[in-house]
């Protein structure tokens, strides 16, 4: 039964087989992701058709909209900047299998804490940007740390705690904005503008004649974050700990990794990156705070991270893609009167299918795990 191992074990051949297998499986991965997107688009097509609208016209607007004018392309890149930053932010706890949904609140806290500095403290150029950003990142780091500590040391479910914290923080934001930051006598609920030195110049400012809307130097945050999050997850010992916990928390603990500290810090590190998205909105896009400044970005960012399978090098691609859909959706709304619901349908289908995929992986992993337990049972 236990036949003797082959005398010569052809390592080179085996290595080639493994590489082929790996290539095949990454191709399958890519195929599945593309199929998900196509299926979602197809479903949207059917929905529009059922609504009695012209699906071809709608899709033309959706798929070419963002590129029909420079300003729209600028809008696309501006939205992508936000989504990529949030996508990178949530990818960190996700890699440790911590389902932190706190990005929305972390952005808001970062924006408001940064705004206090950026609006009221005149600072020289460059420093005028760096100091508010540092304050924002530190604040969101702490806000992220809270549910992280609760999960790690009290075993509080992170989905619940981050959602609750979001609700609290968003209301606090409204409160502070309405009663403290709104200048007396102003009719709209919004803050004063940030100091001129705290502004991130738009590319339209830098290159007069080039109309890229509000697409701005915040893109530097994106570049730095991609490199930073990649280094963190793939090249730093902390990232090794995160990934190992994500792969098997018991194993990580057995191996000597301080799992509690790592889990708590993974939430916090995500918070720090989410703050950058808030600061991009504050200093680059709007230059002031107003109610509901973050919109849906915290949630869309999660979709972006899932689409990229939490790989920091793929997040920019999925962020660009998703932003394209959102901006295209606005065009559809204007041209075909389908309403932004179309994009939401497509978005929902993508999330559903990805979740189903992730669930599938998860179930397979659980099954394999269960089988191994059965071995010893």
């Amino acid at each position, binding site marked *: 039964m236990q036949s003797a191992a082959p005398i010569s074990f052809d*390592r080179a051949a085996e290595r080639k087989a493994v590489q082929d297998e790996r290539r095949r499986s990454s191709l399958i991965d890519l195929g599945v992701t593309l199929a998900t997107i196509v299926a979602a688009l197809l479903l949207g097509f059917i929905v529009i058709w059922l609504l009695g609208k012209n699906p071809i016209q709608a899709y033309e607007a959706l798929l070419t909209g963002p590129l029909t004018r420079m300003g729209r392309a600028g809008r696309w890149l501006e939205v992508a900047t936000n989504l990529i930053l949030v996508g990178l932010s949530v990818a960190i706890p996700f890699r440790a299998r911590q389902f932190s949904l706190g990005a929305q609140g972390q952005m808001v806290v970062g924006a408001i804490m940064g705004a206090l500095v950026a609006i009221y403290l005149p600072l020289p150029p460059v420093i005028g940007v760096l100091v508010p950003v540092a304050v924002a990142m530190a604040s969101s780091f702490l806000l992220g740390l809270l549910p992280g500590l609760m999960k790690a040391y009290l075993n509080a479910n992170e989905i619940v705690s981050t959602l609750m914290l979001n609700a609290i923080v968003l209301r606090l934001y409204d409160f502070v904005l309405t009663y403290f930051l709104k200048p007396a006598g102003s009719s709209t609920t919004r803050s004063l503008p940030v100091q001129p030195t705290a502004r991130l110049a738009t590319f339209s400012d830098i290159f007069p004649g080039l109309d890229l809307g509000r697409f701005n130097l915040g893109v530097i945050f994106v570049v730095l974050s991609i490199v930073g999050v990649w280094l963190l997850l793939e090249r*730093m010992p902390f990232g*090794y700990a995160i990934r190992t916990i994500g*792969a098997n928390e018991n194993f990580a603990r057995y191996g000597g990794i*301080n799992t509690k500290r790592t889990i708590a810090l993974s939430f916090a590190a995500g918070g720090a990156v989410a703050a950058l998205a808030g600061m991009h909105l504050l200093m680059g896009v709007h230059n002031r705070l107003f109610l509901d400044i973050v919109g849906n970005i915290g949630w869309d960012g999660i979709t972006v991270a899932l689409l990229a399978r939490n790989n920091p090098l793929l997040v920019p691609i999925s962020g660009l893609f998703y932003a394209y859909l959102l901006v295209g959706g606005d065009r559809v709304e204007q041209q075909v009167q389908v309403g932004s619901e179309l994009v939401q349908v497509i978005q929902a289908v993508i999330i559903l299918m990805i979740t189903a995929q992730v669930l599938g992986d998860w179930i397979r992993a659980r099954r394999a*795990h269960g089988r191994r337990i059965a071995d010893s049972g």
Partner: protein
Amino acid sequence: MNGGRARLGNCDHRCCEMNQPPVVEMRDIVKEYPNGVRANERVSFEVRPQEIHALVGENGAGKSTLMKILYGMERPTAGQIFVRGQPVTINTPHEAIALGIGMVHQNFMLVPSFTIAENVVLGNEPLRGGFLDYKAAVEVTRNLSERYGLVVDPEATVDAVPVGTRQRVEILKALYRGADVLILDEPTAVLTPQETTELFAAIRQLVGSGKTVIFISHKLREVKEISDRVSVMRNARMVNTVNTAEVDEEQIARMMVGREVFLKVDKPPMQSGRPVLQVRDLEYVSEAGVETLKRVSLNVCAGEILGIAGVEGNGQTELVEVITGLRPATAGRVILDGLDITRFSPRQVRQAGVAHIPEDRLTNGVALSASIAENLIVDRYEQPPFTRRGLMQPDEVARNAEALIEQYAIRAPDGTLPVGALSGGNMQKVVVARELSSRPKLLIAAQPTRGVDIGASEFMYEQLLQARSAGVAILLVSADLNEVMSLSDRIAVMKDGRLTAMFSDVSSLTEEEIGYYMLGVKHMPAEVIAANW
């Protein structure tokens, strides 16, 4: 034989009464898992109508797997199943239930907020006008409960009743679905002695009214008390099936722990040195308040193997996890080479020089989705050369993997392969390679050969003996008596969280002698144990 059985199945009733076929027969069942572990090796098993048939064996002997196959939760790799003489394939629990086979698991599968009646009928509810007929459900539950002596209040919610009652609900659920053959998976593990007595009364009544019960256990006293026949499994094989009346507990124990040919281990004489590990009066009380370690004291010296024998679940797991920092000691001290490591974190314990081959190494000794290379550095990834100036060095990580793959003959093309793609034996080698390459002072090996084939076992023995020759102190915890006896220089026995024996001279020891201590028939006085630390 096959043909004969087919004829039997087709013949009329009178003929069957004369030569009553077994209600369940499993023939030559083989179960091999994708990772190469064989949980059942040509197992044959036969249950007669209206008997209480005990299925015993140590953890990992394959009894749960065999029953999961019968209940349709696992598919056999080979072999046949007959129910009432008819060949059947059972792919799902639904199909098992349709054949009249029900199973009560160790972990109950009930809806806590539903009433007992609702739980009993769940999935097959009596309906009236498309809605649950609650009155009928209560009625049905009460009838079943009275008929089989399983006392429950049908209208109580499940989360309000004690464990013993929940178990009765599970049994009622199976009966409601028409189970004739009930598989009870270690039913007494969760029960108090009183509840156990009630359960046994209920089992007898069930059998009296025509049911058949398969009773999985490793508590021999209970097996002796309740069963008509007993089948013993060991190491994935069926050892024997005997009439319970004809054997005593010791004989069953001997079948369980085995008298296979002693493993041939070439053991050089011991070069024992200083005491490396000193455990003194170690106590552990679990979060649930159970005292699982009671004043355990022992020494392990450099270059010796101290074997800890014992039936699993007598505190061995806790002992290992307290020493390695995975659980906090409640009282007592653990000293490694003069350093008190009692309150150390797992990492500090490792850095003090302790390596640990865990008992559940295929689940917690590796991260399946991570690469071999990453698995090999979990205890040292932050140290040079793997991390320099705050950054990890992928080249060093890969080089380390290549060297260990070569040295330990791990069958993998390179270190980038996920560990989950390896066979069980090779996963084990990854664990051993990592733990031994940390150059430990103390190596703790828990159940080192459980679930692996002969070749992998031999590899493990070689490695342990090499480490011993190199002066490593080794604490070997194993439920396999052969293994403990052939490897150890000294042997301690654990029973109910205590050391009940400590033998300094293994040469004259017999398995029976150790078995008496394992099963609690004999105890050594504390002074004798202390004298042999």
